[in-house]
């Protein structure tokens, strides 16, 4: 196991118990989506994984070794586990894009020539090469987010943690960043862990989904399994992806014979619809026919 959390609890100094007895496992190469309402503990949980926060009780294992919090262990952990913050303005502190991306690798003690190469590669990966010499305040939010990601990529991490990677971005920027992340996962084998509210994005991206509710793990599984449990989704004040919701309505209200596991993406929905059409409405019980949109 890459990460193993055992009964992890965290209490902030103001007394709020933000995480309660969390036990989770993440494997190498996973693409994990962490869902939950505001204040459910997502960010707190993420902050534990590269040592920003220390658990009040419980244990965190990274590759079967418990996390240690001395400067040297933290540096080696942070080299391997990169963290991209929600607001890129928090992260981009240097006066040019290049200097900001170089910050991490320079802290790892690499030689300037090697750092330059890492910076160039990282900026190329995120498609920001032409902005190398620009100061961050010249960039749009989407561009800043990509530079923030480059700053982490330049440290060549094995795991990338992102807090709300798609928040406040326009549709094009969202799709670009998702493709970029998928590419990093499939080509470079980087394990991804994203906290998000964007339920429509999750099925396109994640192979594993964890729902947090009031500091506890409410569910754990593939997006298909978790989103098909519509009762639970409502209980934790989330919603299903629009497409899943549509099929849930078709199934419940119109009694269409739809699989237990709801389709979540456009391609899954397309397949399901074609199957329904091919199998023919005739296979449905007589009484239900009149209720469906298919009967004229």
């Amino acid at each position, binding site marked *: 196991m890459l990460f193993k959390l055992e009964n992890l609890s965290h209490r902030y100094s103001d007394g709020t118990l933000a995480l309660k007895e969390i036990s989770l496992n993440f494997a190498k190469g996973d693409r994990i989506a962490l869902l939950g309402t505001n204040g459910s503990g997502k960010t707190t949980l993420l902050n534990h994984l590269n040592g920003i926060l220390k658990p009040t009780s419980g244990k965190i294992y990274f590759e079967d070794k418990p996390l240690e919090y001395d400067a040297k262990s933290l540096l080696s952990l942070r080299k391997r586990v990169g963290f991209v913050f929600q607001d890129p303005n928090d992260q981009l502190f240097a006066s040019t894009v290049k200097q900001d991306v*170089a910050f991490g690798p320079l802290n790892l003690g690499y030689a300037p020539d090697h750092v330059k190469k890492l910076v160039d590669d990282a900026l190329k990966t995120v498609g920001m090469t032409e902005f190398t010499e620009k100061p961050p*305040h010249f960039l749009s939010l989407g561009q800043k987010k990509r530079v923030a990601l480059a700053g982490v990529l330049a440290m060549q991490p094995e795991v990338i943690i992102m807090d709300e990677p798609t928040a406040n971005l326009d549709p094009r920027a969202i799709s670009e960043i998702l493709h970029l992340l998928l590419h990093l996962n499939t080509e470079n084998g980087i394990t991804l862990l994203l906290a998000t509210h964007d339920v429509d994005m999750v099925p396109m991206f994640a192979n594993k989904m964890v729902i947090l509710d009031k500091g506890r793990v409410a569910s754990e599984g593939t997006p298909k399994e978790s989103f098909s449990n519509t009762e639970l989704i409502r209980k934790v004040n989330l919603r299903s992806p629009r497409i899943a919701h549509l099929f849930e309505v078709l199934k419940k209200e119109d009694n269409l014979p739809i699989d237990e596991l709801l389709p979540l993406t456009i391609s899954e929905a397309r397949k399901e619809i074609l199957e329904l059409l091919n199998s023919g409405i005739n296979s449905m019980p007589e009484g239900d026919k009149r209720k469906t949109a298919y009967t004229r």
Partner: protein
Amino acid sequence: MAHSDIYAHIDRSAYTNLLAKNSPITKGFFALSALIISVSSQSIIVPIIIFTITTVLLLRFAKIKAHFYLDLLIYPTAMAALSCLFIALFFGYGQALTQINLPWFTWTIFKNGITMSVNTFFRVESALSCLYFLVLTTSITDIFITLRRFKVPRVVVELSLLIYRYIFVLLEISVKMNTAQKLRLGNSGLIKRMRSVALVAGNLFIRTLEQGERTFVAMNARGYDGNIRVLEDLPKPKKAAIFGIVLFDIILAIAIFLTTNIGVV
């Protein structure tokens, strides 16, 4: 132009002007030596030469827009003109230019007062042009790296770097808060406007603290250990350029000696 626009524009031109890629050491050496020479000049000739040269460099070679340069010059020039007017009217000794008899005292305007005033005015203008030359052609990153190379204490350079970066973040926040207040009529009337400004100021202070905290965490997450390291890959100063500037400075220094105590009236 609004003030925040001017700052942003100065910053933008420092990154985009055509001399941006030249060595900051060369540019800094030129600007500072010319500055020292022009303030030690005793006539208007050397300052006028320096002003002309820096202005030509800025407009012709760095391709700074002339109207923007004028915008920048106009406020300090107005202030200098006002101060120099007072110098002309109330300073000086020796030979009088004119005397005005007022009922309670005799007001004398001295010849060397006028000379001093005119000299000061041109020195100010040429010093301004030197500083603008540095500011408009050299990005703050280059200046920081150069300062570090010249062994300016780390803490000074690092603090300036962070302050510089977050000025723009906080400027943006304050502009947004101000707009939000205007939209809810927070600017109608003097009292309300003062209250609004006070609220923005107070809020910005808290925001600054929070921002500082978050940035510190984010820096830690990338292995910050108390030292901000930067990638030093500045263009090396060209020997010929440095030599040229030294020669230029020597000629100007000789010119200062030759033109000392040339009066204007």
